[in-house]
């Protein structure tokens, strides 16, 4: 069942919803990356909570005018209006008053959401609105979605994605280097406006599927996860889009199988699973690789220092060093070097001595800066330079047994 949902075999509507969720996830992941790079990830939280009064007001207005209050395009237009108002309030509060942006975000999201709750209770008491089902906008649902709604969501996701592709260059530039972007003739205010407009678009489209409380997760989690995989901005954008798409696709598929569960939380947990996997397993910045690199570095330092001690005939007290040397076949359990160990330790000693000379000579200043106790001097200086240093040291001597 889950498999047939994943492979789009659960009927036309479910397929459309899953496709919409996938497109939405891709668009949200990509858009969120720009927000993430501008360090404004949580602004989207204010925007998404500010949609609630718009949804409720749209319902009230449409009902009063005699239309069906549950008309999705109407509700989404209403939500976009108050979302824009909320965004404007955040901008105004943080630029015109001494309040910081995080305080502005918190104030706007709680007040708009609170007002939305008031309106929801008003709707509950309206004669026609007994069961408006607007609560599904809080946590999202794919159950009982109309064909036209699914088309709207899929189309909206595709549109948002297309806009991201068109505006990717100015957004990337202003996210990374605002000064450079300005100098290149990019209007920063307009780019910010486009970015926030896209965030709003993604939020509004995602309201129905993911719900307004958790849509912010789709904008934050995929970029944070993608950041582990690459240091290149374009790669991060693409990876975030892929991860967001996977989360939307698998979440919506599972939700099609379990219609009683709200869709938003399922999608968010899939996104978090991807985040956790990235944080653990990604090469380079992932925790596992970091731990391995750390261990490798630790071993290299211990062996090098152990060899230096052996070369100078000093006893080794550190048990880890002794164990590593023994495992590498460089020393016996009692700390006496093997033949191999003696050979290597004299090499290390010579290397150290060469470094010592190089570091005391201003002529080698540039190279000496790369001394870290591990790098071999052969990797830094040319053979001619080393020969020059060796003439100052004298011939290599034999290590005492």
């Amino acid at each position, binding site marked *: 069942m889950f498999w047939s949902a994943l492979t789009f075999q659960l009927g036309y509507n479910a397929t459309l919803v899953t496709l919409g969720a996938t497109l939405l996830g891709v668009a949200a992941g990509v858009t969120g990356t720009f927000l993430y790079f501008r360090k404004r990830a949580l602004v989207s939280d204010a925007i998404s909570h500010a949609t609630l009064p718009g949804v409720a007001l749209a319902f009230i207005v449409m009902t009063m005018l005699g239309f069906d209050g549950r008309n999705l395009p109407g509700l989404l237009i209403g939500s976009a209006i108050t979302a824009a108002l909320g965004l404007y309030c955040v901008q105004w509060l943080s630029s015109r008053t001494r309040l910081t942006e995080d305080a502005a975000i918190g104030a706007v999201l709680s007040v708009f*959401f*609170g007002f939305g709750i008031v309106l929801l209770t008003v709707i509950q008491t309206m004669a026609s609105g007994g069961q408006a089902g607007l609560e599904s906008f809080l946590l999202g649902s794919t159950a009982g979605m109309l064909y036209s709604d699914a088309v709207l969501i899929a189309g909206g996701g595709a549109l948002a994605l297309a806009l991201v592709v068109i505006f990717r260059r100015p957004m990337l530039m202003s996210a990374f280097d605002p000064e450079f972007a300005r100098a290149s003739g990019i209007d920063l205010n307009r780019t910010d406006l486009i970015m926030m407009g896209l965030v709003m678009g993604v939020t509004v489209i995602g309201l129905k599927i993911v719900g307004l409380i958790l849509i912010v997760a789709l904008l934050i989690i995929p970029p944070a996860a993608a950041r582990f995989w690459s240091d290149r901005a374009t790669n991060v954008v693409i990876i975030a889009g892929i991860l967001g798409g996977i989360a939307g696709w698998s979440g919506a598929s599972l939700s099609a199988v379990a219609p009683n569960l709200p869709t938003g939380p399922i999608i968010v947990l899939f996104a978090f699973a991807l985040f956790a996997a990235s944080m653990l397993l990604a090469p380079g910045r992932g925790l596992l690789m970091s731990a391995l690199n750390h261990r490798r570095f630790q071993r290299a330092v211990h062996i090098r220092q152990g060899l230096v001690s052996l070369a100078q005939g000093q006893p080794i007290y550190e048990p880890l060093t002794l164990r590593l040397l023994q495992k590498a076949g460089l020393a016996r359990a009692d700390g006496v070097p093997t033949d191999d160990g003696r050979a290597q330790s004299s090499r290390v000693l010579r290397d150290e001595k060469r470094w010592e000379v190089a570091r005391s000579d201003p002529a080698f200043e540039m190279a000496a800066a790369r001394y870290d106790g591990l790098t071999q001097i052969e990797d830094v200086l040319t053979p001619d330079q080393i020969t020059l240093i060796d003439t100052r040291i004298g011939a290599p001597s034999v290590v005492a047994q």
Partner: protein
Amino acid sequence: MNGAEFVPLSLTPLLIGCLAAIACALPGNFLLLRRQALIGDAISHVVLPGIVAAFLIGGTIATLPMLLGAAGAAIVAVAMIEGIRRYGRIEPGAAMGVTFTTLFAAGVLLLEMSDTSGVHLDVEHALYGNLESLVWLDATGWGSLVDPTALAGLPPELFRIALVLVMIAALLVAFWRPLAISTFDEGFAATLGLPVTAIGLGLVIVSALAAVAAFDAVGSIIVIAMFICPPAAARLMTNRLGTQVALSVGFALIAAILGFVLAGYGPRWFGSIHAVSAAGMIATMSGVILALAALFGPARARST
């Protein structure tokens, strides 16, 4: 409106609303000044999974396990945020966003998958509380305030939030100086030998305590609004910390009273017999106060 109607139906919810608002506004002042305003937001989201987990383990909705569960969830959240921030090298805002959305999602799913039909525990309740239902049915009028048998029937939430408020106020008075110094100049506080990390952590724990106690009674919307709006409005009125804290308490009180009255009696002025959500209205009122302060507050500009 007479005592026979007001005391049993409105007095206790109003009192609880006021106490919860003040309990959140007090630590909110310092969170705001430390640019940690959204900690309150994060905490109030993660309270839900904690309470659900406590329910699943304990099987009841008794108070103590729920408070423990919520406190545990808050600690898990703080650890997760710190872990993601430090080991993942993710910026704090995003680390917070990842954490609280995930924990909230987990809480919602746990709640939906477990059988909670027998108890009063659902997502809506978690979001906007049930302030209106905290009535005092044993009361018959103002005279009940001195009647011991009627007083025994007061909703337990009242005592809980009052106790928490007293604790928070006492802690605030006791640690006022170190808290103020470390809030404004952490480096200077450290040179004085103050344990700045412990102070910061203590503030978060106190905030979590306020959030959990208030959440129990009024839902997370008031919690977030009260953490931020009254202190933010007070911040736009004055440059002095003491005045700011006092003003924020006043604003929280005004928002709670106005909000409750408007929610309960406002719709009647429009000819409707139904009340609207008190929690939502209180949050809205705090927003109105903040808007007024932002437009007319004497210290609203950045330069002063």
